[in-house]
Each structure stands twice: as structure tokens, then as C-alpha cells.
């Protein structure tokens, strides 16, 4: 329990740190959302000043930060100038879309990587292992940016996949079944890109973790008892090797909200990434602060969840933490 409390406190402090840091940079920055307005001859300077006052932009930094904190407590996370609405609902819709994408991709990547990595480790130096290591080092050398562009180009050129976006224009007219297939159809390319981005890292770690365990005497003993290879790999070796993998799983949970920014932008998926980018370009500062804080929150929560899972899976850690 104490461990949990410490973890929670750390997370809250981190969130405070991040939002405070963002606000501090905000103060350093020249210009804001209303700066663009001032250049417009149709809007009088007094209107701009009134708008600034209405949004509280004329107040000093500590006041604004305090106000933002209050608004965050209320669940609004500030007000978007560009959308004219509180930030939280905007973020929630976008975060839902992002999670749909990254959740699917993360799940699939793990489902593929676990058995694959185990089989690679089962015969180190075999054809599967060598082939996979060639593939992983190739994939690691291709940035996600390029991977996304290539897949989009291929998908569009062949006409097999839609050119980005999440839903077709005539989505509303579709039947329920058509709507689902339409959504899935749009998801294929970004999900594939995201999987290819994470798969090499996962594969390498699964393989390394398994290799370490397969050296252990108890595996040789199990082999000596005539237990089948498959059973040894998945029932004896994998559970013993699970610790680093659980930590890794925590990291992939932590990256759910922030890991797909580029892919989303390239595939014009209406997730958190494009929202943040637009906000950065428009200087819609509360959206930026909100998105960064939100994704940091997810990060903290994901890592904490990973620790909890580790806690649940390994009795040694449990007893250590209790002492």
C-alpha cells in the first residue's frame, strides 16, 4: 500500500511539474493566439484587448496558472480559443480515436511478438531467428515517418485502402455492419504502421528474456524429464521470463496516447496528435498544455499499471515491498 501511495504521489508531482513547465515556457514565448488577430485590420485593437481580457490572457502568469488548475479540477482543462469550447471534451473525443488505433495496434503487436519471440529464442541462430533479426534491424532503421508515407502511398496507389481519415464521407448513410467494416477498413494502414514500429522492439526483448531463462538448469531438468518442447517454452520458460516483459508491457500502455502522433498526422486520423499539431500551429496554448498533461497522465498511469502488474506477477517483489 505504501508503495502505491508513493507511486501515486510521484505521478501527481510529475503532472504538476509538466503543467508548470509548460506554463513557464508559455510565459517565455512571444506572441499568442490573439497576435494573429492584431494583424487583421478589420479587428480593432480594443476588440483584441477585450478578447484577451475575456480569456484572462492579460493576467500575470501565476494567476493564469492558478485559474487553469481550478479549471482542471473542474474537469475543463482550460478553454480553447480556436474551438471556442472547454478543452477536456475536445481531448476526450480525440483521445478515444487515438486509443482505438493504438489499443488495437498494441494488442496485435503483443499477440504476434510473444509466440514469435519465443520461437526465435527456442532455436537461436536458426532460420527463423536469423530472418527475424534481419527484419528487426531493417525495421529499426526505417523511421515511422517514412513507413507511414510508404504504406499510405502503396495503399492509395493500389486503391485497396482509403487515403487516410477515419470514416468515409457517407458514413451516416451506412448500415450498422457497413459502418463497422468502413471503420476497420480505415484502420488497417495506420495499425499496420504502428505494429511495424513496435514489433522489432518487442521481438528483441521477448527473445532476449527467453534466451536468458532457457539457459537455466531447471529447463535442462525439464527437458530431461521428457516434457515436450512446446510445453517447456510456454508453460515453464515464458512465465519465468515474464518480468522484463511485464515492464515492457507497462511502457507500451504508457505510450498508448502519445506513441502514434506521427502516424495519425500522416494518415490524417482524427486523434490527439493532429489536434496537438493544429494547436501548436495556431498557438492555442490551453489545448497544447491540456494535450501534453493528458498524455503525461496516461504515461504515469501506464507505468504505474506496469509496476502493479509486476507486483501481481512476481511474489519476490511483493514480499520485498511489504517488508
Amino acid at each position, binding site marked *: 500500500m505504501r508503495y502505491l501511495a508513493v507511486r501515486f504521489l510521484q505521478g501527481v508531482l*510529475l503532472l504538476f*511539474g*509538466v503543467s508548470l513547465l*509548460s506554463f513557464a*515556457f*508559455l510565459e*517565455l*514565448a*512571444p*506572441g499568442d493566439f490573439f497576435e494573429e488577430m492584431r494583424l487583421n485590420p478589420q479587428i480593432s485593437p480594443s476588440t483584441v484587448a477585450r478578447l484577451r481580457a475575456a480569456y484572462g490572457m492579460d493576467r500575470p502568469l501565476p494567476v493564469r496558472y492558478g485559474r487553469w488548475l481550478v479549471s482542471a479540477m473542474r474537469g475543463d482543462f482550460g478553454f480553447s480559443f480556436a474551438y471556442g469550447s472547454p478543452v477536456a471534451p475536445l481531448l476526450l473525443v480525440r483521445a478515444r480515436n487515438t486509443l482505438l488505433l493504438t489499443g488495437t495496434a498494441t494488442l496485435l503487436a503483443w499477440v504476434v511478438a510473444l509466440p514469435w519471440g519465443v520461437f526465435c529464442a527456442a532455436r537461436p541462430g536458426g532460420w527463423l531467428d536469423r530472418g527475424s533479426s534481419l527484419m528487426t*534491424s*531493417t525495421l*529499426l*532503421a*526505417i*523511421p515511422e*515517418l*517514412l513507413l507511414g*508515407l*510508404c504504406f*499510405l*502511398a502503396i495503399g*492509395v*496507389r493500389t486503391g485497396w485502402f482509403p*487515403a487516410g481519415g477515419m470514416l468515409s464521407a457517407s458514413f451516416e448513410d451506412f448500415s450498422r455492419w457497413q459502418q463497422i467494416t468502413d471503420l476497420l477498413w480505415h484502420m488497417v494502414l495506420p495499425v499496420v504502421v504502428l505494429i511495424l514500429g513496435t514489433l522489432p*522492439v518487442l521481438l528483441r*526483448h521477448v527473445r*532476449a528474456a527467453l534466451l536468458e531463462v532457457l539457459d537455466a538448469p531447471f529447463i535442462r531438468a525439464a527437458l530431461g524429464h521428457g516434457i515436450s518442447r512446446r510445453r517447456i517454452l510456454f508453460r515453464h520458460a515464458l512465465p519465468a521470463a515474464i518480468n*522484463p516483459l511485464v*515492464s*515492457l508491457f507497462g*511502457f*507500451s500502455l*504508457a*505510450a498508448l*496516447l*502519445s*506513441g502514434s*502522433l*506521427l502516424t495519425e*498526422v*500522416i494518415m490524417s486520423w482524427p486523434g490527439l496528435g493532429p489536434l*496537438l*499539431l493544429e*494547436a*501548436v*500551429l495556431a*498557438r492555442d*496554448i490551453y489545448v*497544447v*498544455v491540456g*494535450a*501534453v498533461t493528458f*498524455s*503525461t497522465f496516461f*504515461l*504515469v498511469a501506464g*507505468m504505474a499499471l506496469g509496476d502493479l502488474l509486476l507486483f501481481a506477477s512476481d511474489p519476490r517483489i511483493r514480499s520485498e515491498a511489504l517488508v
Partner: protein
Amino acid sequence: MMRMRLASARKLIVPLALLMGIHLAVLMAGFVAPYNPDMQDRAAPNCPPTRVHWVSADGRLSWHPFIYGLSENVVTENGFAQPTKEAEPCTENPRTAYPIQFLRRGVPYTILGVLTPDRHLLGVATPAHLHLMGTDNYGRDVFSRLLYGGQISLFAGLLATALSLTMGVLLGTLAGFYGGWGDAVIMRGAELFLALPWLYLLLALRAFLPLHTGPRQTFLLLIAVIGFLGWARPARLIRGVVLSAKERSHILAARSFGASDLHLLRVHLLPETRSVVLTQAALLIPQYVLAEVTLSFLGLGLSEPVPSWGTMLATLQQYHVLVSDWWMFFPGIVLVVVFFSYGGLSDALQGERAKAGVGWEDYR
């Protein structure tokens, strides 16, 4: 470091040769590139790479490679090419052959800021153009832009890495050597920086800095932002090295002889960090090159008409370019080669040393 095993030394050769080749070509961009990066060949926008021929029209093998000029295009009032009725754009006109000339005189360029030679590695006589990697929307030579763009993208990566490592070495050594509350503050800060989603942080930090600045300022700003965000990992590693090194007996002995802190740091401790710094550099440089490319791609870094690999790749966001102009992927291909070489380099530097544990860092 000195007695690196032969196997890993051999592994270094290919990536090092590739990197040196690319960097040399980029440094000598003025000489290697046939054209100025901003020169617009308005008669030939969006043209695929010029085909180099060895066999002439009447079927004879030519010792001298040559290219064909393009079919007549009519340049309209707005300055862009319109094909005449009988000719598609970018089609070759087999009646006009132009041999490729080595060390041809062309546009003057500057090297080292003082010399202004005008010889280029390759070129063809004037009405024709040699576009080894095709042309972009404005008819600019992609090959030339790639080389000049590399000057920005590659050096942004190198300089940002230098900044990051300097900060990392400075803070890491201070934290490891002196310990105490300074150490605690620095390490908590490092944890904060490591915990954050990197790209989000990059975007956020960019958001709070001026967007519309001159290219030179933007370049420096990018380096500062990218380099500033990356100090935490090297700092942590170097702190570890210093922490373990400062308890060694030769350092304790030097201290008991009355060596000053500065002397200890300079003579005994900093050399110990060298291998960490090298491997970190091999890891960070490609990452930071990519950071510049990404920011410019997203419209937050350098912008047109400045050539950088990011601004070049950004044209791929236009639908028709993405679908039909495959040669606009060339900067990406070079980027992959750079990545691959640095990857091989860092693998060889790290040797067979197994990575211990899983870190957020290697999850990206």
C-alpha cells in the same frame, strides 16, 4: 577501446565508409550537385529522374553516357509548363542527345566561404537538364536539394548531439562527482525529462517558441530545442560512470596527493566517460537528424524554400505527389541509409555487451 576485437572493428568499416561518403558528398554539395538548390527548371516540374543512356538511337553502344532533351513544352504566362498537344510532359526527345560531361562549368558556388569555383562533378549542355533524382513541384532538382538539404538535416543532428552531450557530461559529472542535493536535483530533473513523451515535449516546446523566424534563427532554435531535451539520458549514464570511477584507488591516491577537483575531473574522470559519450553519440545523432526532419515535415521546423530533408519529405503530404512522384522518397531513402549506418556503428561500439534490463528509453 583500443583493443577492439577484430570482428567488431570489421563491422565498423561498412557503416563508417557509408557515413563518410554521405557526409563528404553533403559537405561538397556545391561541387557534387549539378544545380543550385533553388534553381527552377520551369519547363519540367514533377519530372521523374532523367534516364541516362548508353545506347544511341541507331543502336550503337556509346562510350559516353548521354541523356535526351525533353520534348518541347510551352511555358504559359504563369510560368509553368504546359505540354504541347503532341507531347506529354517529361517525355524524351530522341533527336536531341546531350553527353554527360564531367567537371563541367556551371553555376558558381562557394566552398569554405572564400573559394568560388564553378566546376561541377556532372553536367550537361544548357538547354537540357540532368535531374538524377527527378524534379519537384517547382522543377527544382531533387538531387541537388538532397545534398544541400543534408547540410541542414545532418548538421542539425550533429550540433544538437554536441549540445546534448555537453550538457549531459557537464551535469552528469557534477552530479556524480559532488553528490549531495545538487545530485538529487539533477537526477530528479533527468527522470522528469525521461518520463515525458519525447515527441510531445518537442512539439510543446516548439509551440512556445516563435514560429515565424528567419531560416538561420529557426535552424539554431531547432538545434537548441532538440539538444536541450536530450540531456537526461547521457547525464544519467555519465553520472554512473563517474560515480563508480571516483572510488577507484588511483583516483583516491591522486586525491590524497592533493590533486584539485578540476585536475581529477580533467585528467582522470573525463577520459573514463569517453566510451559512453561515443556510444551515446552514435545513438543520438540519427535520432536528432530524425527530429529535425520530423519537425520540418510537420511544418514546425524549417520551411520552404530552404532545402532540408524534412521540407522535401513534406511535399509528400500533397496527394498527387504521394501517389505519382515516387522519386520524392529519395530523401527518405538516404535517411534510412544514415540510420542503418549509425545503427551498425552503435552496435559495433557496444560490442557484445548485453543490454541489461528494459528501459523506457529503448521503447521510444
